[in-house]
């Protein structure tokens, strides 16, 4: 075969945002080394953080220009650029900007330049993951994201729990990568291709799971691999420790940016690559396929995540278990395996990411000033920091799914998509009922958390002052959470239009 000349210019143009972010990462490193190394720690963090924000904002420009353009593929179909992908890259940029802003207010140790650089590399990884449409690229992008996050988790160098969290996260991550790679190799072995859309065709030709036990094994291992990344039960064990041990801005990043990218790529792998292998998760009518696997893990996640969260005393740990439960809710939309399901998943991961980012942002801002992230450190915050407490109220109630906040509508739409799937016989209603019942359970621990903010009096009533830029940034996130609940129409219609490219293969 003749080597095909690589159209470098096309690639650089298609990945303009990633290029800008990579350059910004190097600038952050050199800026730190060259100019502000001797300056005060806050000044250093703010200078380089500002540089990172500028870079992130600059990366919006190429994305904006691509928006609305035709769907293009790069490098023989390994990377794609279409409206849905650009939209989610913009979401990643927004999440990264807020994460940087939270970090600027947080003690991240001496290695300021490295911190922001690695954070930006992580963002590049997430963006590549979102545009990847080929197994090897997916794997590489996933590793780029994960390795960045391992490093960031360990950034509290003096703290044992940060080190422990990083090692644990790394070990689990490495094992999950092995599973994933193993699974993907089987898929490649059976179908003879690594492109998602080519796999879809190949699967339809081979006649699905029944014909090929190897493909079943590949599917199983792939789902296990992704299951680790999105922290679904029973592959969730790393999450509580990593969330608790990591510096809080990093926790926010793991819980939001990496989750968005992982769910997005999982959606694409399942809906495009394994389009013919759904099976069935209808009550009393299970058939092997990925919806059945997902249904079992979703049910376990909702039960275990919510029940375990009840007994937590650490806010970050509590939010970790809550995010395990939320992964279960999101899976319900995947199990529906319809266009409405895809739209609901895409909508929910945006709401979920914003809400969690806001919640962790408030925790980061307050815990560093209140002396810890145990629940009792937040006693009486409604008096000490009324504005951030109000924001926390919004975020936590959104997580609990209380209207009119985004979390409520997102959850409603997820559940509605599952009921709609088999509306005559209510085949998926069992999962929805479980989800709704578990939401009622979740309200208990969310209210306990809010009780510390609002009901219990503080032992030290001195007011807490947080920087204005942080208040404004988190306030905007809260407004977005409210807006997504009160008026979800525009985003929903956008996502519904875009999601066609993902679900086309499901329609037979």
């Amino acid at each position, binding site marked *: 075969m003749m080597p095909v000349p690589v159209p470098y210019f096309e690639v650089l143009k298609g990945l303009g945002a990633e290029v800008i972010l990579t350059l910004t990462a190097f600038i952050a490193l050199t800026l730190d080394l060259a100019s502000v190394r001797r300056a005060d720690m806050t000044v250093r963090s703010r200078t380089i953080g500002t540089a990172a924000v500028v870079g992130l904002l600059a990366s919006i420009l190429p994305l904006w220009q691509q928006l609305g353009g035709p769907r293009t593929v790069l490098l023989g179909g390994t990377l794609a650029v279409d409206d849905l992908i650009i939209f989610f890259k913009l979401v990643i940029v927004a999440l990264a900007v807020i994460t940087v802003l939270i970090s600027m207010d947080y003690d991240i140790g001496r290695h300021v330049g490295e911190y922001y650089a690695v954070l930006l590399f992580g963002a590049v990884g997430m963006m590549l993951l979102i545009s990847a449409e080929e197994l090897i690229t997916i794997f590489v992008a996933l590793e780029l994201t994960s390795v960045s996050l391992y490093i960031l988790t360990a950034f509290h160098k003096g703290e044992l729990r940060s080190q422990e969290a990083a090692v644990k996260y790394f070990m689990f991550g490495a094992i999950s990568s092995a599973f994933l790679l193993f699974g993907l190799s089987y898929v490649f072995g059976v179908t003879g291709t690594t492109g998602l859309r080519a796999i879809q065709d190949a699967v339809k030709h081979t006649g699905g799971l029944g014909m090929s036990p190897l493909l079943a094994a590949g599917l199983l291992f792939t789902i296990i691999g992704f299951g680790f990344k999105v922290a679904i039960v029973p592959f969730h064990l790393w999450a509580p420790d990593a969330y608790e041990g990591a510096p809080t801005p990093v926790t926010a990043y793991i819980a939001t940016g990496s989750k968005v990218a992982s769910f997005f790529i999982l959606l694409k792998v399942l809906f495009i690559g394994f389009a013919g292998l759904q099976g069935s998760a209808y009550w009393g009518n299970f058939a092997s396929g990925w919806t059945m696997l997902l249904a079992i893990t979703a049910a376990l996640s909702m039960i275990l995540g919510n029940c375990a969260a009840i007994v937590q005393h650490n806010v970050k740990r509590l939010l970790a278990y809550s995010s395990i439960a939320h992964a279960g809710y999101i899976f319900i939309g995947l199990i529906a395996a319809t266009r409405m399901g895809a739209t609901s998943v895409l909508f929910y991961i945006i709401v979920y990411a914003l809400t969690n980012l806001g919640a962790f942002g408030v925790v980061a801002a307050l815990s560093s000033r209140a002396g810890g992230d145990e629940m009792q450190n937040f006693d009486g915050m409604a008096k000490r920091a009324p504005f951030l407490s109000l924001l926390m109220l919004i975020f936590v109630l959104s997580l609990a799914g209380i209207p009119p906040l985004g979390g409520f509508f997102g959850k409603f739409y997820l559940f509605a998509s599952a009921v709609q799937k088999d509306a005559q016989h209510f085949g998926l209603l069992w999962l929805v009922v479980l989800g709704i019942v578990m939401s009622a359970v979740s309200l208990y621990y969310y209210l306990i958390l809010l009780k510390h903010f*609002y009901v219990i009096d503080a032992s030290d009533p001195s007011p807490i002052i947080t920087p204005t830029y942080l208040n404004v940034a988190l306030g905007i996130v809260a407004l977005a959470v409210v807006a997504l609940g009160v008026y979800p*129409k525009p985003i929903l219609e956008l996502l519904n239009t875009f999601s066609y490219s993902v679900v086309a293969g499901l329609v037979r």
Partner: protein
Amino acid sequence: MQVDWTIYLTFLGVGLILLLPRDSKNLIRWVALLTGVAALLVALKDYFNYNDWVNAQISAHGALQDGFIQIVNVSWIPAINTNYHLAVDGISYPLIVLNGFVCVTGILFSWNIETRVKEFFAFFLTLIAGVYGVFMSMDLFLLFVFYELAIIPKYFVIAIWGSTRKEYGAMKLVLYSFVGSALVFIGILAVYFSAGGQTFDILELAKHPIARDVQVWVFPLIFVGFGVLAGMWPFHTWAPTGHVAAPTAASMLLAGVVMKLGSYGCFRAAMLLFPQGLEHWRWWIAWIAVIGIVYGAGVALVQKDFKFIIGYSSVSHMGFVLLGLATLNLIGMSGAILQMFSHGIVASLLFAVVGRMVYDRTHTRQLDELGGLAKVIPFACVTFVIGGAASMGMPGFSGFVAEYQILVGAFHMHPILALAAGLSIPLTVAYILNANDKVFMEQDQPAGGGGHGHDHQAGSGESHPALPPITPPERVAAIILMALLVIVGVYPSIMLNMIKANVQLFLRGAP
């Protein structure tokens, strides 16, 4: 019709209060009061217009053609075909007015709150706005949104400003409500998709035939889901603990309007949409209601805590509402709707006496520790006697009109039902008189209670002249509520006409 402005005005009030500095407590109180009064005036103005309209319709056509006055109906979220659809009819109108009155009087009775005034009134008005919204929503999804909006503030209001076991009571109440709304949620999804997934509009859904077997299992989900909040036995246990834990204004709201959210939901969502399901389950509902009526009254009789008496009495009186709804005849159902209004006022009044007039002054609610208060705060005694008389169904008060009609309706359904429910009336008389006796009459009990109460010598009514007198806001609020009881009791057609016209529509099968 501008009655939807009740919602917007109340939210505006919340926003305004959030912007005020937290130290200007009086300003915040006045803003809250003005918000409440403005909303009430809007509601009242349209109420009388509607009443005239109904009367004109009836004299012209003999009956209503279409009971609903549409207010607004615009597409909200097209992806799930839900509309922002507000409308009112003769069933929701009395409840909207009730909410307005309870809001205003609740604010007046909360005038003495000193801690975190700003947050209190913000939560309070959010709850009120949610309740207004529920009573106007004609879209199931929208109704659910407002309904949930009314649940969460209750937790904070009770947990922060409450008394006896407040965190327990608050959490129990919210979890019960939330489990109830989870059932409703499942039911709503089921009805939406059974009707083809085209609309959440209640009036549209009511026209859509839903398969009988679906009706039979979805009806109890929605009915019980809302029934939890209506204090339906055996899911009533949140009500006494919640009422006892709550601060005065919150008890008033809880018993006065929030429990009505439940019974209103039972009527509007469950009964309207599932006629066959209702037919299948109505005897169950009726008997469960009767059990609640008698059980609530019986348990109230043996309580030692003044507030628990009123709490259990609410369970009993709400049982009348459910019984009236289950009768499915004109007189019984009209009585049920009127009972919602009447009990809302009675319960608010009684909780105000217990919580604000007595407890805030004596710091005890134990019947054994109270006594002889009639001499010290005679106004409270008069208020309690009037509220109690309305509660036990004395002619001349609204309670009589409502409960009498319910019993007649129940008698038409089955005489035993009426007989069993009627048992509660002597019980009610007994517990009201008993409480009146122990709290306001018997002079040879030490008053003041708590730690310092025992320092006083027993046997002297003069042992508590130190109790502060009844303040003007309390007087105004109590007089408003008492006047309502008498007005509706003496001249019930001011409310009953529109209720009857709409119940008739319902019984004819029209939405």
